[in-house]
């Protein structure tokens, strides 16, 4: 989507923001740098990095026991660094160089051939596009952390992340957002990563959690979140950062970015309140961890649709996100019995997939949407995209887990698990209050 929107933006800007005289000269001007777009893309990049560091890390860290909080922060941090380096080494090239419909080539390994002056085919420098997209490659494996907290070996996490980024993230990213990708070209709508980010991470999380096995004592003696305030801080950072994620995916400071911001926010607010009310009705008390989880669900769900729906579509999507993800959490843990510890699948997977499907409906003008597709055909396109992604992510994850099992081993010993990963894996203690 991004590249397509780029082109749109270029035109939008030349038509709207500059004067006729320029527009007429637009032919050879189409790759001129626009400082406003550049300013926004710099900012959006900062915001998306902020989502992971420290946003997601805190959101997850507050949910585990106090003896494992540092390990969770460490996972998020190390994964972010690792993904950054891999992005430079080969991921960017695999994802965004031409290649074929399924995968890019290796022409830009180590960012070979990127010059300072090059624009990204749009209105801002290629370097910023590389950075912006890198932050997506950072947060996506970061999301998966929620599935394996409190029990997975640190070395296994690093290996898993490396393989997963190469085998799952890079190809799916290429399919959807590269000009040569098959989903890009069949008109699949995924503005900011319902498929690329949330579906891939969600499915892989579920499978990894299943293969890894539950935390010892799950579900009988699992502890409540050790620090709900930390969860809320992280969630709030996710919220503000998500504007970079979604509105930044419009790759311009323009009208589309404005509407994307608006619908993103509406979905988050509605989903939060919906979750709160459901929880209130079901348990008698509206909780903080609940309302912020609703918020994340609302944001994940609107993500693919945020470039195509209007305010009322956002209200509907937020409402559905709040309800469906709420029940999905209970379903995975209690019915499936899978210890997807921090509900990555139920919130991100279910949300991302649902949003990818719903955009086919709420994106059309009849529902206040901005897209001009036919609901039926688009539903099929969206479903196909989701389906292939789910299968690919699932199969690849299974293979990767077997490799990790063989190379590093997956789990820490039970004693380490009991004493806590902070002490045992990282040699640190979380709260030394005296």
């Amino acid at each position, binding site marked *: 989507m991004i590249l397509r929107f780029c082109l749109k933006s270029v035109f939008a800007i030349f038509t709207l923001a500059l004067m006729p005289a320029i527009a007429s000269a637009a032919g050879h001007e189409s790759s001129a740098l626009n400082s406003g777009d550049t300013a926004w893309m710099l900012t959006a990049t900062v915001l998306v990095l902020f989502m992971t560091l420290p946003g997601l890390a805190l959101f997850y860290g507050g949910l585990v026991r106090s003896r494992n909080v540092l390990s969770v922060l460490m996972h998020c941090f190390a994964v972010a660094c690792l993904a950054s380096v891999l992005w430079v080494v080969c991921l960017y090239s695999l994802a965004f160089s031409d290649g074929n419909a399924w995968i890019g080539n290796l022409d830009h390994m180590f960012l070979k051939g990127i010059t300072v002056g090059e624009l990204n085919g749009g209105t801002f420098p290629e370097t910023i596009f590389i950075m912006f997209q890198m932050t997506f490659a950072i947060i996506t494996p970061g999301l998966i952390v929620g599935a394996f907290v409190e029990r997975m070996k640190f070395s296994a996490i690093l290996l898993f992340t490396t393989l997963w980024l190469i085998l799952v993230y890079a190809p799916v990213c290429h399919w959807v957002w590269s000009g040569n990708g098959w989903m890009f070209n069949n008109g699949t709508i995924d503005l900011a990563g319902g498929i690329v980010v949330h579906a891939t991470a969600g499915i892989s999380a579920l499978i990894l959690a299943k293969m890894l096995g539950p935390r010892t004592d799950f579900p009988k003696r*699992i502890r*409540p979140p050790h620090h709900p305030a930390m969860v809320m801080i992280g969630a709030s950072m996710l919220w503000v950062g998500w504007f970079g994620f979604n509105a930044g995916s419009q790759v311009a400071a323009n009208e589309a970015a404005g509407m994307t911001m608006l619908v993103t926010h509406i979905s988050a607010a509605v989903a939060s309140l919906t979750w709160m009310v459901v929880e209130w009705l*079901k348990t008698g008390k509206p909780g903080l*961890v609940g309302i912020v989880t609703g918020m994340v669900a609302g944001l994940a769900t609107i993500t693919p649709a945020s470039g195509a729906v209007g305010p009322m579509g956002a209200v509907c999507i937020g409402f559905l996100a709040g309800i469906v993800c709420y029940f999905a*959490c*209970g379903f995975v843990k209690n019915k499936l019995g899978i210890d997807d510890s921090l*509900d990555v699948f139920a919130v991100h997977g279910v949300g991302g997939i649902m949003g990818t499907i719903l955009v086919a409906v709420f994106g059309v003008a009849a529902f206040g949407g901005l897209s001009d597709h036919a609901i039926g055909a688009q539903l099929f396109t969206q479903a196909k995209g989701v389906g292939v992604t789910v299968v690919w992510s699932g199969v690849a994850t299974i293979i990767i887990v077997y490799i990790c099992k063989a190379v590093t081993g997956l789990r820490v010993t039970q004693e380490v698990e009991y004493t806590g990963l902070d002490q045992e894996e990282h040699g640190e203690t979380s709260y030394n209050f005296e």
Partner: protein
Amino acid sequence: MKLIKAIIKPFKLEDVKDALSEIGVVGMTVMEVKGFGRQKGHTEIYRGSEYTVDFLPKTQLEIVVDESIVEQAVDVIIKTANTGKIGDGKVFVIPVETAVRIRTGETDSEAL
């Protein structure tokens, strides 16, 4: 001398302290503890899953007093800490052989 160990509901601490002061008990040591007893823990529900919290927050007071006022002190604690609801807590009395004030080296009654 006796050590009175009282486990009470946390929000009763101030009242108990004040009541003890009134009868001349001027020193005590307090700690936050977790209690398990007849009052069953509660469940907290997060994202649709139930988490059992077995231990409840309680406050424990340790007060060393002269033989002579043990009974009175225990009475005052019981009266003040009582809410009539389960989980109000316990008072235990334990013998103490010596007491010393670190600052002065005074011992026993004088140390309190």
